[in-house]
């Protein structure tokens, strides 16, 4: 195995394809955080007074909190005063069309493989692109507006739909929830707001690409999706960031609210910069994602493919409040190089006959460390709740690690909770076997890995499943010697 490890490392030195920096003038606040900074953010965004109050309340609470240490990840302490909390491309206040967008910005998107120009004609996908802190272009607004769907930047929603934002923001993830949620509630820069009216099936997949460009800026986006009774929506976010030596913080909050019979599908393909082969640089991805199945028979499904970031700390969760509600979590998390991930989900069963499914696939290569942490809680009133969890780990090489931390709390005797876990290894023997049948090393690895992840990829919208497979193949290219 000794020689194969060296080979692994030689091959894994693949460059991060999205690691370019866009030269663009931006308006960035100096590093540091105090109430004045928060007031500045709020006023730059032209926010109403109630929003500023919400931010300040969260900030004051955050000051009393301590950074959590329970996750199975290690990183140097984060200096929250060394981060700039607001950055926006300079030449831009309000843009009516794509023609007015800075050409260099558009070029950046093209390098990322999301040509907005094309997206406009590409049927079925609307993109709200978030560049650093300000949303610069929104497409398909009109088509969506006809259906009554609101799909816009969060800062715009705060101004245009204050009643909706006020009612739902913080209703699923209150600012007191955790350290990073409190920080986000105080300083969130932008994000996406989606509102699907009663009975409406959103006519297209909604998609947002986030990108951190400015050095030493944190990105704190805030996403809120509200699906009224009987409505349906599928939402996809994709993430990349340029290469930097220093670490950058990404602390987002995503809240989903599903009313009676509503269905929300939320898919993530996350490919933030993971750091170099020495473990320098890379994104700290500390994200709080939670959905509430508020109404009876509502359904929330999280699907994530996580291949990037230096450190990931993320638990997309479901609160199954209504009766007969369904929560799902499908995850592929890849850690290679020196990446660390502590990820999983929480399924909180409050309603009768609520059901949840967890499928987690962790892949570790080289020095990667991958932990699944999942909570299944069945409250006393949740008669006949059901959960099935399956956590599989795949190891590549002999210096990586996989951990599983399942937490199960059941307070109702009618509950049925099942947990399965497996750990396996991509072995030299398997690769020899495939190659002896004529397959190339790359095809063999990709076949084995895709086989391992199939259950999760099946949950992604078709075009993104293909993208995710490619991303996985690229990110694990030559992972096995």
């Amino acid at each position, binding site marked *: 195995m000794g020689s194969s490890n060296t080979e692994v490392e030689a091959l894994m030195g693949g460059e991060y394809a999205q690691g370019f920096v866009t030269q663009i003038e931006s308006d960035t606040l100096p590093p540091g955080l105090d109430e004045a900074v928060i007031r500045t953010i709020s006023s730059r965004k032209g926010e109403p007074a109630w929003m500023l109050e919400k931010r300040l309340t969260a900030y004051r609470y955050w000051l009393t909190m301590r950074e959590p240490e329970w996750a199975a990840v290690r990183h140097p302490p984060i200096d929250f005063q060394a981060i700039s909390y607001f950055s926006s491309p300079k030449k831009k206040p309000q843009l009516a069309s794509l023609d007015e967008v800075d050409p260099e910005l558009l070029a950046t998107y093209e390098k990322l493989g999301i040509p907005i120009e094309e997206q406009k004609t590409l049927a079925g996908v609307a993109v709200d692109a978030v560049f650093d802190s300000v949303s610069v272009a929104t497409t398909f607004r009109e088509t969506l507006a006809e259906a009554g769907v609101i799909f816009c930047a969060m800062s715009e929603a705060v101004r245009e739909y204050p009643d909706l934002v006020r009612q739902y923001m913080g209703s699923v993830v209150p600012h007191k929830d955790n350290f990073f949620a409190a920080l986000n509630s105080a300083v969130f820069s932008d994000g996406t707001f989606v509102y699907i009216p009663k009975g409406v099936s959103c006519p297209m997949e909604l998609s947002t690409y986030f990108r951190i460009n400015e050095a030493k800026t944190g990105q704190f986006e805030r996403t809120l999706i509200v699906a009224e009774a009987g409505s349906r929506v599928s939402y996809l976010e994709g993430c990349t960031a340029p290469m930097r030596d220093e670490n950058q913080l990404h602390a987002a909050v995503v809240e989903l609210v599903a009313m009676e019979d509503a269905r929300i599908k939320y898919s993530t393909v996350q490919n933030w910069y993971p750091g170099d082969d020495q473990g320098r640089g890379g994104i700290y991805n500390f994200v709080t994602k939670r959905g509430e199945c508020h109404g009876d028979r509502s359904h929330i499904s999280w699907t994530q493919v996580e291949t990037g970031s230096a450190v990931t700390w993320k638990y997309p969760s479901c609160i199954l409040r209504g009766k007969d509600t369904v929560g799902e979590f499908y995850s592929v998390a890849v850690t290679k190089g020196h990446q660390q991930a502590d990820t999983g989900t929480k399924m909180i069963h409050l309603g009768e006959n609520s059901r949840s499914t967890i499928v987690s696939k962790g892949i570790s290569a080289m020095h990667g460390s991958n932990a699944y942490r999942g909570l299944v809680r069945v409250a006393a009133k949740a008669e006949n709740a059901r959960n099935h969890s399956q956590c599989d780990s795949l190891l590549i090489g002999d210096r990586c690690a996989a951990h599983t931390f399942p937490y199960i709390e059941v307070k109702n005797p009618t509950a049925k909770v099942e947990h399965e876990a497996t750990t396996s290894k991509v072995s030299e*023997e*398997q690769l020899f*076997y495939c190659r*002896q*049948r*004529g397959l190339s090393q790359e095809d063999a690895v990709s*076949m084995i890995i895709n*086989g391992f992840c199939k259950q999760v990829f099946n949950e992604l919208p078709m075009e993104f499943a293909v993208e995710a497979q490619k991303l996985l193949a690229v990110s694990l290219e030559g992972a096995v010697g």
Partner: protein
Amino acid sequence: MLSIKHLSASVDGKAILKGVDLEVRAGEVHAVMGPNGSGKSTLAHILAGRDGYTVTDGEVHYMGRDLLEMEIEERARQGLFLAMQYPMELPGVNNMIFMREAMNTRRKSQGKEAMDAVSFMKLVREKAKLVKLDERLLKRSVNAGFSGGEKKRNEILQMALLEPLLAILDETDSGLDIDALRSVADGVNRLRSPQRAMIVVTHYQRLLDYLEPDHVHVLAEGRIVRSGGMELARELEAKGYGWLLDEVAA
């Protein structure tokens, strides 16, 4: 087709093969017998290109090319097939898709068009019947949870699909009950052809009774110490390997 000249090889500095000579022509079936630890599997692995062996001397030519210079997959694409003693399990990889990928890779290297899913499925079902492999196993993950006999039948099925020029069977008979042995042997016999050569590596005579090889070689202490026909295999079955080793030593 295959010409092995004075092949010597070691594992972790320990010499395993010490000058093997073997000539295999199209249409021939050669059996390589020998006691445990004589280097039979090592020879099969080196021919397939497996890592972990150091060739210290000698040369191997296959279809006029230097075999030892070829990558594992290149050897396979040029028609060299190794039916393994311990076929690997590939969880999550559909057996049928795996075989189709392998088959289409081979066809591509022969300059043939890829086979579409429907024709492939028909073909694979037909061939599965010949080796008596339960059709349901085609839909499962490659070898995952298969019994020993099922794994071996699955190997022979792949061999039937890939139609190799040189098939090497590494202890394909080990761990098989008599019925499985017979159907595996039937499958192999059906693949005999004037264009195809086979090397059957085995410890026992019983598979050879069904296959009736043209040549039988005894590998001992890293060398081919005796070659003959089926009568040699029968003699070994009756008397064991001891007398031959004593003779060689003397």
